[in-house]
């Protein structure tokens, strides 16, 4: 059974903290994605990666960075968390661009 696993379902962090969200896939997929989901805005792409050590900015990269040191792992980093980064974060992976994206269950991050 294909699987994308996010390290935490719920996180509460303080303003200014450095936050790491981890995502692991077991399908040997080339592409990995980080989205944030907010009501009425659908899923907005933060960063994506099409290969190890390769990363591309999505539509809302400000305040975030990513790391992909191994094919199966894609990390999202909030350098200095702010309250406007309170959101649901979803990680996904896909074999190719036009093929099915498989999602993790999401991390609900609250920044206080």
């Amino acid at each position, binding site marked *: 059974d294909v699987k994308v696993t996010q390290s935490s379902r719920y996180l509460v962090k303080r303003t200014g903290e450095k936050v790491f969200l981890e995502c692991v896939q077991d399908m040997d997929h080339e592409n990995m994605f980080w989205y944030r989901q907010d009501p009425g805005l659908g*899923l907005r792409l933060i960063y994506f990666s099409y290969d190890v050590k390769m990363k591309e900015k999505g539509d809302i990269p400000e305040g975030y960075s990513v790391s992909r040191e191994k094919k199966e792992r894609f990390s999202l980093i909030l350098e200095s968390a702010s309250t406007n980064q309170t959101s649901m974060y979803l990680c996904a992976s896909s074999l190719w*661009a036009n093929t*099915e*994206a498989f999602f993790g269950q999401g991390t609900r991050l609250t920044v206080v």
Partner: protein
Amino acid sequence: TQLLEQSPQFLSIQEGENLTVYCNSSSVFSSLQWYRQEPGEGPVLLVTVVTGGEVKKLKRLTFQFGDARKDSSLHITAAQPGDTGLYLCAGVLAGTASKLTFGTGTRLQVTL
């Protein structure tokens, strides 16, 4: 402004009614996908359309890709409570490699 705009944003209907959800853009996509997301879960793929004018049917769901590959629609016949969820379109822009962009979402509620 997001690249893929969905309408309506919310839809509440009774069991047995028909409905159509629209996904529109001013940009050309190499393919479009439709996902459904249930509470507490990540989105799950329903269908992928790749050819302009293509129509795909999945039981009571009919998906259409516009001739110019800028828009898509999802039609549900005789909706059932099990169809309740958030419907999301997603696409890869023509000429871009891996960037999968999602729409704003349509939240569907089907009641008995």
